C-alpha cells in the first residue's frame, strides 16, 4: 500500500462532499501523475484561500475579499436584496446571473426539531440592512421545503413593518416539465400560483 503521506492525502480528500475513498484515491493518483504542474497549482490555490478567505460581514458570502465581490460590485442594484439559506444557494442563483441585486445569506433555516432558532440565523443583520434604507425589494429565495417556507413566512412577517416590497420565488411547473410527470404537490402549487396570460 501507499506511504503514509499519500494515505493522509487520500483520506483528507475522501471526506470532501461527493468524493469518497475510491474517488479520492483516483484523485491522488492523478495528482501524483501530474505533480509537476498540478500540485504547485493546487497548493497555491489552497494557500491563497487559507490566507484570504473570510465571510463577508455584510451578506455572509464567502470570498477572499472584504466586503465580498458581489457587495463591492457597484454595477449591482443595491435596491434589490435576495435572501437565501446557504452560500451554495447564493452561488446557484448567481451562476445564472439573472439576479442583479445583492444577497443576504441566513446561514440555515428555522427548524424546531433541529434546534435552529431565529437568533441562530443572521436575521437581525438582515433587518439591520433593510432598516438602514436604500432597499426597495427583498426577494425571499428559500427552498420549497417545510423549513424553507416556514423561514420565508417568518421573514415576511418580520419585514412587514418596513417600507419594502417583499416577494418570493414562484413554485410550480418546472421549465420543460410535463404535467403528466409532476407529483400532485407540485401540480397543486402550480395551480394555486396560476396567473393571467399576457
Amino acid at each position, binding site marked *: 500500500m501507499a506511504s503514509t503521506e499519500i494515505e493522509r492525502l487520500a483520506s483528507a480528500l475522501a471526506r470532501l462532499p461527493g468524493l469518497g475513498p475510491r474517488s479520492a484515491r483516483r484523485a491522488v493518483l492523478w495528482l501524483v501523475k501530474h505533480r509537476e504542474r498540478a500540485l504547485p497549482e493546487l497548493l497555491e490555490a489552497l494557500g491563497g484561500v487559507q490566507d484570504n478567505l473570510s465571510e463577508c460581514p455584510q451578506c455572509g458570502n464567502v470570498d477572499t475579499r472584504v466586503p465580498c465581490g458581489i457587495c463591492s460590485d457597484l454595477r449591482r442594484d443595491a435596491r434589490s436584496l435576495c435572501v437565501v439559506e446557504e452560500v451554495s444557494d447564493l452561488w446557484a442563483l448567481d451562476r445564472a446571473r439573472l439576479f442583479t441585486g445583492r444577497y443576504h445569506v441566513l446561514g440555515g433555516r428555522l427548524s424546531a*426539531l433541529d434546534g435552529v432558532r431565529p437568533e441562530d440565523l443572521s436575521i437581525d443583520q438582515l433587518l439591520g440592512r433593510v432598516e438602514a434604507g436604500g432597499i426597495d425589494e427583498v426577494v425571499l429565495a428559500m427552498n420549497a421545503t*417545510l423549513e424553507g417556507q416556514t423561514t420565508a*413566512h417568518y421573514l415576511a412577517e418580520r419585514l412587514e413593518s418596513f417600507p419594502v416590497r417583499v416577494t418570493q420565488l414562484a413554485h410550480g411547473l418546472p421549465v420543460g416539465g410535463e404535467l403528466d410527470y409532476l407529483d*400532485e404537490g407540485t401540480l397543486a402549487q402550480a395551480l394555486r400560483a396560476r396567473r393571467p396570460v399576457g
Partner: protein
Amino acid sequence: MALDRITLSRFRNHAETALDAAAHFNLLVGENGAGKTNVLEALSLLAPGRGLRRAGLSDLAQAGGAGGFSVGASLAQPDGADPVRLATYARADQPNRRRVQVNGAEASANGLSEWLALGWLTPAMDRLFSDSAGARRRFLDRMVLALEPAHAHHSARYEAALRERNRLLADEREPDPAWLEGVERHLARHGALIAQARARTVAALVDELATLPAEPFAVPLIALEAGGPAAEEDLALALAQGRRRDRQAGRTLTGPHRDELLVTMAGKMMPAADCSTGEQKAMLIALTLAHAGLAARGRPGVLLLDEVAAHLDPVRRAALFDRLRQGAAQVWMTGTELAPFEDIRGEAAVWRVEGGRVMRA
C-alpha cells in the same frame, strides 16, 4: 389472471419459491408457520407501503442469509398486451432500502399503485374496532391511498409539520407567533387535503356499502368524525386559536390526525367495538370487499385474505365465495386445511406450503 409467475427469493422462510399458473381463486394450504402468510406478505409489497405486517425491511430477508430479498410477479394486462413485470427487492449491501422495478426499470414504490390495486384482510385486523383510533386511521388511510396516491405526500408533509409545531409548543419560552404561523400554514394546507381525501373515500365507501344486501354479512355503517375543520382557512384559524390550549396539552389537539373512523352495525345500530367477534369480522370483510370494488376500477385488483374462510360459518363462507367469484379482483387465501374451500376447490389454483416450500396440489 392479474398476478402470475410469482417469485420469492430469500424472503422470510422462502429460499426460492415460484408460483405459476395462478387462477381467480388461489389457495395456500399448510400448517401454522409453514410460510403461507409470507407469500401474501410478499404480494402485499407490490403496493406502496410496508406490506400487510407493516414489517421493517430488514425483517423480510431470510434469517441467517446474506440479507436482501426479492419478490416479483407478472401482471396481466386487460387489453391482452404483454404482462408487466413488477418487482420489489432490497440488496444485500443496502438492506434498508426498498427498491422497485417495473419491467426491469427502476421505479418508485408509489408508482406501483398505478398498476395494481391491492387490498388485504389479516387476523391482526380482527381487533381493529376495539383498537386505538390511530389503527383505524391507518386502516382508512390505506384505503384512501389506494384511491388517491397523493394522500401519501400530504400525510408525510403534515406529519413533519405537526412534529415541528409540537416541538415549538413544547419549548420553555413562549413560541414565536410568526414562526408558529409559518408551520401552521403547512399544517392547514396539507391537513385540509388529507381531511378532504378521507371524506371522499368514506363517502364512496358508504355508497358502495349501501348496495350490499343486509344478509348474511353484517353491513357496517361508517362515518368520519372530523378531528378538525376540513377547509384550509378554518383549520389555520383553529390552529392559531388553539395555541395556548395545545401548549398546555403538550400536543396539537385539532386537525386530521385526530380524525376518527366511526363504524356501527346497521340494523342493530350498535358500535362495531361492542359487536360479537363474528359480527366484527363480517363487517371487516364487507368493508374490505367494498373498497376492493372501488379500488379496482380502471386497474387490476388483488385481494389477500389471510385465514378468513376458516372463521366463517358455512352460510357466510359460501356467500363470501360467491361475492369473490363475481368480483373482478383476483383472490389469494390461506388456510390450515382445504376442507373450508370445498366450494371453490375445482376452480382454484391450490398450493401446499411446508417449511418455506410451495408445491402445486
